[in-house]
């Protein structure tokens, strides 16, 4: 397979920061879900976050577009503070695409309508324009022929690719993936991963919560391991997988790479 080829040749760490999380704290009642999380994501960087369930990895990416509200620290997306003003929040949500574990397509709308809704309502595009963009991205995820079907008529893998196209139609600067392959039958995982890999090769800034370590090895610039609401360890995939520093990381990798 191809090696990761960033859109420009500047090392990821030297490009401008797209997302800055500094000292982010998140509580659910008394449960401390994120503990002083610091994370800088640079433009075009591909980040994979892994960790046991309940480690806070989904919470972390859901704080970026404020599906969850953080209580302490700050999150800045492309220069806009998250949670300071509702206008800032609108801006962030329009620039950040998200793909969910359970697809969350709108079942009463066709595939094409799923893709054109936000560009029309949020970006104010004319229907024809929005449709042209939608078809471009449906071709991109290789299902233009399904445009007039309803989500319920598609397989899980196809639905997830529509969900990716739907997010891309907003021309986001960042894509968040929240366990995008976890709800899929095994034979459909590859088609979704392939779509994500091609997106990565185009230089999209991506944060992926996933247990697909093959994907992490292949495209990630950095792998982050979280446990109990903290970032325990991070590093480029080569060193992360070969020499995990922390005992917790070793135990986790031992568990998921064993079978």
């Amino acid at each position: 397979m191809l090696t990761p080829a960033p859109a420009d040749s500047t090392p990821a760490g030297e490009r401008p920061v797209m997302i800055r999380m500094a000292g982010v704290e998140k509580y659910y009642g008394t449960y401390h879900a994120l503990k002083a999380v610091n994370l800088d994501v640079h433009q075009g960087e591909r980040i994979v976050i892994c960790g046991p369930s309940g480690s806070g990895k989904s919470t972390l990416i859901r704080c970026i577009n404020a599906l969850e509200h953080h209580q302490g620290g700050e999150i800045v997306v492309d220069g806009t503070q998250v949670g300071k003003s509702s206008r800032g929040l609108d801006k962030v949500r329009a620039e950040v695409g998200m793909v969910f574990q359970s697809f969350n397509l709108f079942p009463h709308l066709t595939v094409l309508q799923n893709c054109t809704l936000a560009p029309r309502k949020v970006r104010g595009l004319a229907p024809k324009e929005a449709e042209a963009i939608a078809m471009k991205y449906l071709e991109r995820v290789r299902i233009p022929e399904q445009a007039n079907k309803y989500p319920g008529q598609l397989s899980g893998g196809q639905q997830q690719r529509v969900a990716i196209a739907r997010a891309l139609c907003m021309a986001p600067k960042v894509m968040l993936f929240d366990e995008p392959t976890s709800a899929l039958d095994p034979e459909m995982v590859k088609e979704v991963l392939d779509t994500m890999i091609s997106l990565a090769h185009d230089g999209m800034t991506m944060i992926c919560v996933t247990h697909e370590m093959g994907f992490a090895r292949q495209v990630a610039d950095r792998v982050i391991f979280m446990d109990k609401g903290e970032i325990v360890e991070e590093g480029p995939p080569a060193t992360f997988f070969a020499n995990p520093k922390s005992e917790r990381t070793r135990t986790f990798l031992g568990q998921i790479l064993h079978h």
Partner: protein
Amino acid sequence: MIRQFTSAEFFFLVSAVRWTLLLSAIAFVGGATLGLVVALARTSPWQWLRATAGAYILVFQGTPLLMQLFLVFFGATMVGASVDPLAAAAIGLTLNAAAFLGEIWRGCIQAIPKGQWEASTALGLHYVTRMREIILPQAAKIAVAPTVGFLVLLVKSTSLASIIGFVELTRAGQIVNNATFRPFLVFGIVAAIYFALCWPLSLYARHLEKRFGTVSR
């Protein structure tokens, strides 16, 4: 003198059905409009709005409809406004229907999976667009059957308007009975007419439930 129960009396009853239907229609349209507001308030992000709508529902579900009609009718007279019985009945029934429909629809809105809210929020859709394009169209499907079911209840509830003097089907029955003294016959016919109005609606509600209950996606 006592009159006979003839076809004239019978057609008097049948012609009173239009007032029952008119009152039902006004109360349903008014109740649905206000009920949507109540349902949206009950599911709103603002605590004070949810609490206000909750209190409204509590009051109107927790007191008899007859008392509500009395309070509207005599309350209006007390402040010097003269309301005719139709207006009083329509207002009372509208307020009452709004509480019940609001609560039914709140449930339908909340039955829409959380993922639908999250996906539309993540796409940057605003509250109004999110509600109009995503949540309400899906909630409406679930709501159709229980709403028609409630309409059956509403048609029968209009009979209480007879007590504040509005001449609809039940009041017409009382008038005919006062003249003919054939209570069993008269109210038997009145009941049969209500049944003829409500039964098709019940059947329709069941049909809609089958149709929309199974196709959820």
